[in-house]
């Protein structure tokens, strides 16, 4: 970030995939008056630091959790257990989810693991001991696949709930469909959803890269178009401060949905809950007006 600002003199920076790294980059963006547009990190606190140069296109964990918290409440999945990354994203996600849950949902077991961990057997034992009816996995694909396999191999049949990284065909390549059957996850981009903007992007993405589109790609694509639109609105491709002003007031219909930043520069794109079916396809469970059959999620 420092190099991009002081040597390359870029007007806008897109990206950073990791919340802690984004937190470290944000002050540099502010110091050099360069808008930093995040499209992947989900730690809720990132956009609550009063940094007017930090923008986030994707939903944060609190926004993503909202729908899942309602899902847990409706089905009374109590006690609810967690396995989460031992970092801002994981701990922030657990705390956010706890705050959103109805009061009558008890918390069973909460286990944190460091990046790179592969053995979740202790978590599995503690989940069994807690009698959890549901387990939420706040992590990405790699540990997620391992945790799910170890939970199911150990004979636990708790309802599994995952993150947006676990709702794509790419995730299915890591696990047999039998492990995923019934699992729900929040999603910002259900790749098979019957929505024209998603279908169109999915088709173009598959033609270009030969695989199913996923949320990170869609969000990053929107972030890029947003930067271009802001430059056009500001009438400059070099003045970071002017582009920042344009971004603050922008209104944009992207692949992930309508994007408009609030006072904290946080967008509020639509969030979905998808569920894995026995045959390895997915369906949409939330929002109610988009509920679908297997194969359309």
């Amino acid at each position, binding site marked *: 970030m420092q190099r991009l600002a002081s040597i390359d003199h870029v007007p806008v920076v897109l990206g950073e995939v990791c919340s802690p790294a984004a937190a470290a980059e944000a002050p540099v963006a502010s110091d050099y008056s360069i808008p930093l547009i995040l499209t992947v990190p989900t730690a809720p606190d990132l956009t609550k630091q009063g940094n007017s140069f930090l923008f986030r296109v994707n939903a944060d964990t609190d926004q993503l959790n909202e729908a899942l918290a309602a899902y847990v409440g409706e089905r009374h999945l109590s006690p609810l257990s967690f396995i989460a990354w031992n970092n801002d994203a994981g701990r922030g996600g657990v705390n956010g989810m706890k705050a959103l849950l109805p009061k009558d949902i008890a918390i069973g077991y909460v286990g944190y693991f460091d990046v790179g961990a*592969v053995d979740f057997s*202790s978590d*599995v*034992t*503690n989940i069994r001991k807690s*009698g959890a009816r549901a387990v939420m996995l706040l992590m990405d694909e790699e540990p997620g696949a391992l945790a799910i396999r170890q939970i199911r*191999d150990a*004979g636990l049949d708790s309802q599994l709930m995952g993150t947006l990284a676990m709702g794509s065909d790419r995730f299915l390549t890591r696990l047999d469909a039998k492990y995923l059957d019934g699992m729900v996850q929040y999603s910002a981009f259900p790749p098979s959803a019957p929505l024209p903007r998603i279908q169109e992007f999915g088709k173009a993405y598959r033609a270009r890269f030969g695989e199913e589109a996923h949320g990170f790609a869609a969000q990053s694509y929107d972030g890029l178009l947003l930067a271009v639109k802001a430059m056009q609105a500001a009438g400059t491709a070099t003045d970071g401060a002017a582009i920042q002003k344009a971004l603050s007031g922008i209104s944009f219909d992207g692949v992930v949905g309508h994007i408009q930043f609030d006072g904290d520069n946080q967008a509020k794109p639509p969030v979905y809950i998808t569920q894995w079916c026995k045959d390895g396809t997915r369906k949409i469970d939330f929002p109610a007006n988009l509920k679908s059959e297997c194969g359309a999620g």
Partner: protein
Amino acid sequence: MPASGIRFAVTALLEQIVNGMMMGAIYVLVALGMVLIFGVMEVLNFAHGVLFMAGGYLCDVFVVHATGSYPLAVVLTMVTLAIVGMALERTVFRRLRVNLPMQIVASLGLILIAENGAVLLFGPSALQLSVPSVRSLVRVGELSFTVQHFIIVGATVVSIGALHVFLHHTRFGTALRATSQNAEAARVIGIDSASIYRITFAVACALAGLGGALLGPLFLISPQMGDLPLLKGLTAIVLGGMASIPGAIVGGFAIGIVEAVSTLFIATEYRDMVVFTVLIAILLMRPWGLFSVRVRGDA
């Protein structure tokens, strides 16, 4: 405590003992190799973890691209790593005997080369070695484990037995023990120390490879997969006594079981803290480890 609570607690304890034995067996395989090399050559091979990692990758290559057979791939992995071990001994570690600072530098260099080499050859993403037969499940009451849990423990026990037979019932093993006790005296009576060092490294690296090949199908194969087993294997030999084979075995299994069972009482993210607290406590009482004998001049 109500009866159901006791049942849950006993079930959890049993599950964690089995899980702990499985991981402990992996630590034993790493620790045995390290203790053999240290005992015979006074070389502390901090790069032993990357040999474990190489075992995982080689096994994947042998299964997916060569044989299609997991057991055969495990054997080929061990043989390949034994050859790699002999080459490492000859080219790197023989010159560094009794020079701990240079052993550390050389080991760190090997770690960097091996881990970056793995990224270069296999990419940064972890590999998933899918072996359906080892993923089949064994039910024990209401618990369920993969067959690989028991294969890992069984293979480790067989390796310990084979090592015992090799060390105590073969001429080469006797020569190896003699070199370990007094290298100079062993040379005086005609033992070829160069061969002993070579074979020691070969056996140690084959054991590390076996560990990687056994754990690979259960979890993931990644450049860093040997880091934790190295740390725990090193802890096991410090705990058991630096040159003690029984110490490495007891230390490895003890660490696996203690860290697994401790998570029933404290948060899982603190399990390493428990292991190292136990290690420090034992070393305060017995600085020479559990199984080594205190000699004059030792602290």
